[in-house]
């Protein structure tokens, strides 16, 4: 069965520091991979997506993610974090079959200190 693991429940960084949020997935074929961000009291906003091709994908708000098939990972990165990046981040994988479901990780809450 497909699954997504986000090992870090909560991460704290200083403003201006670099960031890496981890995501590992279990999937039988080449997955569709997504990162979403959720600000407090808001819905989920799509940050970036990977379908195929170049394994380094760029997203909105200066985020990027790298697909590593050998490690079953799709980690999210940002070189310099801003206070406004404080939010919860979800990794998701596209499931197989005709149902087109997404399987979500449990999320990583990012706190940014000035």
């Amino acid at each position, binding site marked *: 069965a497909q699954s997504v693991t986000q090992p870090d429940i909560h991460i704290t960084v200083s403003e201006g520091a670099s960031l890496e949020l981890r995501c590992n997935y279990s999937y039988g074929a080449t997955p*569709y991979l*997504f990162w*979403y961000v959720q600000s407090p009291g*808001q*819905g*989920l*906003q*799509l940050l970036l*997506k990977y*379908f195929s091709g170049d394994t380094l994908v760029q997203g909105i708000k200066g985020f990027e993610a790298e697909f590593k098939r050998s490690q079953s990972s799709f980690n999210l990165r940002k070189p310099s974090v801003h206070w406004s990046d404080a939010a919860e981040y*979800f990794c998701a994988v*596209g499931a197989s079959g005709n*149902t*087109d*479901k*997404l399987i*979500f*990780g*449990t*999320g990583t809450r990012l706190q940014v200190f000035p």
Partner: protein
Amino acid sequence: DAGITQSPRHKVTETGTPVTLRCHQTENHRYMYWYRQDPGHGLRLIHYSYGVKDTDKGEVSDGYSVSRSKTEDFLLTLESATSSQTSVYFCAIRDPSGRNIQYFGAGTRLSVL
């Protein structure tokens, strides 16, 4: 932002009462989804629809039913609400590109007392 409106945005109800949440889209997309979000669980799929009157269950469908009589509206009903259904509910629509890109509404916070 994707044209998705969820209503109501907040609701408090009592155990045993019926509750209906509405998701309305202006994108004319075929696929619509209902998720619930709970701490430590991320988002879990309740039900989804792949067309008018075509629906299927997700991983946490017990206690919930859905209906889709028009492309633009997808209703989630709790026939007899329980405290375990206190949650934040999100509706999503799927991009028609076929790559399962989903866009989310702002959510409904439901409290069952």
